[in-house]
């Protein structure tokens, strides 16, 4: 009797998982992207000249220019999104912003901390890590810039707190 119940419950769990995975695979990711582009336009942000590649569990944008208030703010070589139900990742590569090149920026999410994104920044001029709390809409970043970057963007970094490790702790509420 118990084994029958176990079998049935496993079966239903399996169906739920199949449903969720197939729903994600069938989702029109490009149209979701267009939806968020519309929302960003209200904040004067837009993407131009990009190539869109969409798959079952991944979605990527290649060679895009990001415009803020009609000014070409920065270029992005690629933005790749992967979502596997319990784990999701957005990886942006080669962001060029005002002469500052950020090689890799990664936002990752897992079901173990569902209300938090982990952020990692890697570049020769600027390294950092941090978190984004979805509930509180709060960024907490620890950035370690090179000397030249710290001088150039001193006004931005001085808004944060300098830790003992030489990192700037910056908190920002969206």
């Amino acid at each position, binding site marked *: 009797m118990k084994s029958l119940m176990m079998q049935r419950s496993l079966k239903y769990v399996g*169906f739920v998982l*199949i*449903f*969720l995975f*197939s*729903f994600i695979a*069938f*989702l*029109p990711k490009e*149209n*979701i992207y*267009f*939806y968020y*582009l*519309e929302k960003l*336009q209200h904040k004067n942000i*837009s993407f*131009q000249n990009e190539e869109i590649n969409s798959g079952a569990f991944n979605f990527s944008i290649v060679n895009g220019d990001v*415009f803020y208030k*009609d000014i*070409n703010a920065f270029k992005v070589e690629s933005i790749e999104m992967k979502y596997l139900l319990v784990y999701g990742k957005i990886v942006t590569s080669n962001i060029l912003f005002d002469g500052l090149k950020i090689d890799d920026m990664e936002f990752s999410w897992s079901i173990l901390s569902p209300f938090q994104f982990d952020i990692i920044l890697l570049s*020769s001029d600027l390294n950092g890590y941090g978190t984004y709390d979805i509930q509180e809409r709060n960024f907490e970043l620890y950035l370690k810039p*090179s*000397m*030249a970057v710290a001088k150039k963007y001193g006004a931005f970094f001085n808004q944060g707190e*300098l*830790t*003992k490790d*030489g990192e700037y702790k910056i908190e920002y509420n969206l």
Partner: protein
Amino acid sequence: MGSIKLNTTYKNEIKLALQIGAVLFVSYFLSIVVFLFLPKEKPQSQIITTSTLEYKSFDFQNAFGSQEVVPSSVVVARKVKVVAPPPPPPPPPVIEPVVEIAPPPPPPPFALSINIVAIFDMGKGRGFLTINERGNKATTIISTGETYKSVKLLKVFPKYGLFLENDTEYKIELNSVAVADRQVGNKTTQQTSPAQSQIVAPTNSLGSERIQQIGNKTVVKKDLLEEYTKNSDKIWRDISLKENLTNGKIDGFKIDKIKRGSNFEKLGLQSGDILKSVNNVELKSYDEAMNIYKKVGNMSALNMKIIRGNEIMEIGYEIK
């Protein structure tokens, strides 16, 4: 004829397949419903994709709006000044055909003329290099992030430096001089350059006779200091320094390790000491430290202020 009866196992499998098919159909149906509510095309944005400013010509004659209308009852006879007719416009200039001259070829990048004489690798890509330009013996010391003429030093590695010029990265390898590792005691490969082969430093010649205690004074021979200024790698074999940070800024240099029996130990320095100033010049940056290093061969006395534990001490040396 008898009908074909399906085995019960096949029935279960077909049932399972139908159930999975139904789940897939439901998920597909829901995704179509979601699709109906989402935009079908990329939103249009009116962006002028030029990066240059748009200049408009300014019409001075009509710049200040319409002229005041004078009512007919207040018309006053005015003297009309007769203005001579404007001179005829000059004939258009004859445009000579422009001979296109090929632009001069771009000069070779400056980075290719840089020669690395010495590397001090602090780890994690930080450090500084002693460089000179090919054909010029004068050397310059640059640290990570610093720009020398049109070239910026991005990172320092044990055997090469990474430079940036005009959005192109250049990897320039160490030419000849031994690389100094930040860990005291590590083996380093040595390659003496032809230019420096005249400086012969016998391995045991830096002996204790160059540092003497005469009464209360510590006397250091000048040639010992000169050898250190000419061969920076000899320093880093005996002593290891790292930045002492206070509120994220350099506030002296901490002695990480000192080799036992080395000249630095004989000078009274210990591991853990923080060098705060030399001859009243506070060590707040690499530049200040390197300036003192360059001048130490010409000094007659050296007074160092150090922090040992919680104690501030001053150590003085006479240079003869």
